[in-house]
């Protein structure tokens, strides 16, 4: 036995590039993806930062109304995020830790609002509690003005409740019941068990959920526009600068301000929380274990709470339907199809939304899986950069993405403004992290040996990808398909700057109709939107023949 020769593992670029050279297709795919990132992320963002002059920056920093908007943005979004999180947690806890009657019903209802743009809660708020609101004016005969930060808080809490609930439910589901059983076995119970085990295990996941909701509410545009009144936030200020004053550089500056808090949040999440997460997906379903850990009193309190939330949601959807199908709800209760015909059947916006969202869903799903395959299963220089760029858009407010894209592509060889293409690009960028994340989690559950078996039997990377990875991730891919479709249909802030007169979108139509006081047509469009999403899901289920139930997500 000879002494070991000195040396170390041959890592680094040299050996990785050597390995790549043997698979030109892989090299090509990596090159194309990096090119895509360069053109659609890096270039527009650099452009956006370079467009404003020093004067613009100075003006924005010293401008009193902008400082005010900055403070408003932080205050209102943190407030509504906190309340949405508390409600989402209680609801998710009730769904996952109790055997309340009607849990199935509660689960379905909680997800209904995500079938429509968040502005629908603002729209319902106006119809119920506005100056001529059905409850405040017709029923109670009050002349109150709830617009401003308070109204915005209520509306945003409800608007972001579903997102908070879905995310927290995912966190709670991934806690292994075995740990709680072990704690019970050691004598822990009730609130002590909750505090020392459940909450401790859930904390990193909850923090991530908080950040996710916060980013979305920071950037939200529709509701501040509808119910914020004089309470201006950065997103609405930027819109006023760009669309109202046609001051693009100032809009750019404001959207950069919007990015700063979200980027901070993104880095905290990425480099701190993920490393400190205890939640592990064991992949072993623990069958037949129900975690009933609450006392009867708590159980009924949770039941009352879930009823309250579900009724509120049903009230919102109900009032939207009533406004859509009666002549003037509150005054004239005759049934009419006029608004539905005007807002849905005669308008091309819903069709445009559908086309753009479908295309986006296809792109994000395929890109997500390709990126996940490369970053998880192949070694090449720049792997970490690719992972970073794929996740980055999650932290970018939609208005920022939209502005960056119009600035980059309103002239030159890649002129795309005024087309549906730029809308699809914007939506795809925004949803890419969803598809990527989903694919990463699906892929990490597939044994590496399956791919090795394929390679071992003579298949190269491309064959392995199409014949093994894609079919095995079918369920996970349909989830990201359905998700990015739904979110693209509902997005407002990303596309607000990207639409053009020929290519209007339904979500924007709802917002602007509501803003101009056409509450009935706005409601009808919202109903059309929900129907479209439902029908598309039904169709996707028939075609994909998957086991996915969107209400189980």
């Amino acid at each position, binding site marked *: *036995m000879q002494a070991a020769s000195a040396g170390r593992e041959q890592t680094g670029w040299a050996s990785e590039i050597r390995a790549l050279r043997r698979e030109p297709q892989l090299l090509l795919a990596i090159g194309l993806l990096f090119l895509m990132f360069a053109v659609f992320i890096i270039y527009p963002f650099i452009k956006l930062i370079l467009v404003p002059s020093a004067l613009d920056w100075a003006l924005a920093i010293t401008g009193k109304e902008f400082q005010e908007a900055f403070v408003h943005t932080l205050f209102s979004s943190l407030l509504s995020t906190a309340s949405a999180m508390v409600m989402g947690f209680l609801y998710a806890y009730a769904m996952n830790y109790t055997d309340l009657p009607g849990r199935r019903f509660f689960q379905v209802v909680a997800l209904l609002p995500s079938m429509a743009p968040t502005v629908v809660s603002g729209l319902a708020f106006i119809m119920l509690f506005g100056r001529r609101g059905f409850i405040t004016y017709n029923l109670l005969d009050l002349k109150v003005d709830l617009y401003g930060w308070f109204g915005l808080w209520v509306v945003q809490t409800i608007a972001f409740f579903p997102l908070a609930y879905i995310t927290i439910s995912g966190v709670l589901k991934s806690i292994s019941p075995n740990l709680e059983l072990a704690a019970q076995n050691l004598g822990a119970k009730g609130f002590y068990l909750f505090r020392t085990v459940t909450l401790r295990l859930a904390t990193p996941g909850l923090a991530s959920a908080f950040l996710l909701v916060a980013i979305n509410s920071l950037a939200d545009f529709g509701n501040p526009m509808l119910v914020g009144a004089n309470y201006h936030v950065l997103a609405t200020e930027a819109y006023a600068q760009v669309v109202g004053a046609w001051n693009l550089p100032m809009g750019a500056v404001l959207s950069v301000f919007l990015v700063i808090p979200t980027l901070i949040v993104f880095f905290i999440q990425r480099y701190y929380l993920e490393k400190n997460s205890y939640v592990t997906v064991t992949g072993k379903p623990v069958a037949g274990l129900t975690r009933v850990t609450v006392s009867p009193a708590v159980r009924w309190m949770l039941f009352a709470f879930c009823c309250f939330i579900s009724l509120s949601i049903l009230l919102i959807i109900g009032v939207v339907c009533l406004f859509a199908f009666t002549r003037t709800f509150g005054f004239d209760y005759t049934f009419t199809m006029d608004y539905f015909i005007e807002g849905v059947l005669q308008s091309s916006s819903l069709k445009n939304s559908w086309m753009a969202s479908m295309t986006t869903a296809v792109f994000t799903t395929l890109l997500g899986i390709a990126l996940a395959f490369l970053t998880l299963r192949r070694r090449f220089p720049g792997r970490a950069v690719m992972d970073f760029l794929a996740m980055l858009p999650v932290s970018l407010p939609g208005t920022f993405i939209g502005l960056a894209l119009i600035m980059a592509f309103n002239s030159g060889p890649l002129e795309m403004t005024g087309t549906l293409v730029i809308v699809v690009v914007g939506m795809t960028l925004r949803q890419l992290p969803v598809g990527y994340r989903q694919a990463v989690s699906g892929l990490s559950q597939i044994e590496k040996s*399956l791919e*090795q*078996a394929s*390679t071992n*039997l003579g*298949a190269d990377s491309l064959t392995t990808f199409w*014949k*093994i990875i894609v079919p095995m991730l079918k369920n996970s891919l349909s989830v990201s398909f359905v998700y990015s479709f739904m979110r693209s249909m509902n997005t407002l802030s990303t596309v607000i700057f990207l639409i053009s007169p020929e290519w209007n979108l339904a979500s924007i139509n709802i917002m602007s109709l509501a803003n101009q006081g056409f509450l009935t047509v706005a409601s009808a469009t919202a109903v059309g939107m929900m129907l479209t999403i439902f029908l598309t899901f039904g169709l996707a289920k028939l075609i994909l023949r998957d086991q996915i139930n969107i209400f189980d997500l």
Partner: protein
Amino acid sequence: MAEIVMELKNINKFFGSTQVIHDVSFQVKKGDFVTLLGPSGCGKTTILRMIAGFYEPDGGSITLAGRQIEHIPPYARNTAMVFQEYALFPHMTVYENVAYGLHVRHLDESEVKKRVEDALKLMQLKGMGDRYPNQMSGGQQQRVAVARALVMKPDVLLLDEPLSNLDAKLRESVRVELRAIQRDMGLTTIYVTHDQQEALSMSDSVIIMQKGHLHQQGTPHEIYFAPRTPFVADFIGTTNLVEVEGNDALIVSYGDTTLMADAVCPAGTVTLSVRPESIRLADTEDEAEAENVLPVEVSYSMFLGEKVRYFLKDATGREWLADIFDPGRRIFEGKVWMYFRADRTHVITESGE
């Protein structure tokens, strides 16, 4: 003498800055069944994966069927492997799984069909081609995994602890069957296991590894009776390893007394291996009929059915194991004499590090 079909030369491998394979070299003859044996973490699976191409060695070369392969991507080698957890594609039927590699090679459909059906028949899976892996038992899945590899007619067949997920009875029968098929087809095979029974019963040649070092390559008989290092002697079966002083003679000193070894011992400290089954016991010194006789005391004994295992202590305080087969009703106690023949001892001069 059969030709050498595969050769590993001075293979080194690092994970980060930790060296996991130290200068490993060995040869494999065509048609041989070679087992890589060692405790977990010894590097046997790493070696197998380097042959398959999932890892690249950080030094050294691998030659297979006349071609140097260490820098060839895994899909371009003909080294079909049976994975420990089978790695059957869950979204494909048994037929599709077995045909996968042939389809990748774009073989004629009729040829694919013939070869797949032959392989299924050989593995007693006839008529199960339409099933999915999750509709089969562990043993059947294992057969599919083997069929999928066999159908490729690999230059070398790689088996990564393929029996470890089967229950003890099934393992026994699959072992016999696998060996018969391998012999009939004349397939060169590398088999990884940590089970010495498997290694001894199936192999033409066994390679013992520990902590990334190759300790010994030899026939099962050589490995068992002529271990080259203390580790090999201890790992295969059970043995008494005794440090003695060699004197360039057959006679070695042990404490105040002397023992006779099977071969001339070089001067200095060497290790003598004596298997427990080679030791006999007697009540008096006169009854001890062998070159080496030592007075010992029985510490305790264990009745194991076909044998009794004794824990003995000699004059130096050292503990010995002795297995007395066919013991009848006789159980030795207190002060007794133990004896063993010189040709049943084995001198180990290498340390193995």
